[in-house]
């Protein structure tokens, strides 16, 4: 195994560990709460965000606080998709334009 491959494997392992630890601290999926709760029979998550987004993130725009803070991973993925698209376009069309 070359040095470059080893560095890639180590980086992949570090990122995987970060992601696993992040998953472990997520809220449970589709949590409806228990009888007597404030949000009984409604998904807890959206009401939680409506009630606490302004206090926790300090952003008046709750949508931005969800996109960049509560679900930052989603935005990270979108940014990666855009980066890949740009890389592919430049890779193909730079040779054609020569």
């Amino acid at each position, binding site marked *: 195994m070359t040095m470059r491959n080893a560095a890639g494997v180590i980086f992949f392992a570090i990122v995987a560990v970060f992601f696993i630890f992040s998953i472990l601290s997520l809220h449970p999926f589709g949590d409806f709460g228990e009888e007597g709760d404030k949000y009984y029979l409604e998904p807890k998550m959206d009401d939680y965000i409506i009630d606490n987004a302004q206090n926790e993130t*300090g952003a008046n725009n709750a949508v931005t606080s969800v996109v960049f803070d509560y679900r930052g991973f989603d935005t990270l993925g979108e940014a990666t998709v855009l980066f890949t698209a740009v890389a592919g376009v430049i890779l193909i069309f730079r040779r054609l334009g020569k």
Partner: protein
Amino acid sequence: MSGMSKIVKTITSIAFPFVMIYGLYVILHGHLTPGGGFQGGAVVASACAMIVVAFGSIWTMKKIKENQLSILESIGAIGFIVFAFLGLIILFDNSGIFFKNVFANSVYLFGQSVEYASTTANINTAGTLPLMNIAVGLKVIAGLFVIVLVMAYASNKIKERGD
């Protein structure tokens, strides 16, 4: 000779700064008003695409190279990742969290707190969100502009060559 008629070029020159300012406003006020980095970046990139259409891709390519835009896009991506990793580096209660909003409700830049159901637009709030908006906006501006520019330039070159 490239681009469209003198009328289109004049109108583009007049409209370009206003579209640009509107897009930058949407990016910088992403944490206060509807929109954000992606939306504002698309507005600014469409202003740049307007330049490509009106003045021609060869003229635009003389002014700015695709390498410079590629570097700009990489700067945006790295900035976004760095702001995400700040949550892991700066520890809270002895544990770091990826994408933790470290500057919110603190004494630092963009650190002022907001009351529940407040509608007052205070730009010095929301912690890392404005910084991430700027990074993503930079990334989307450069990314969409370079896609339009490189495609137009390549098709122009192919037409010139005649194959």
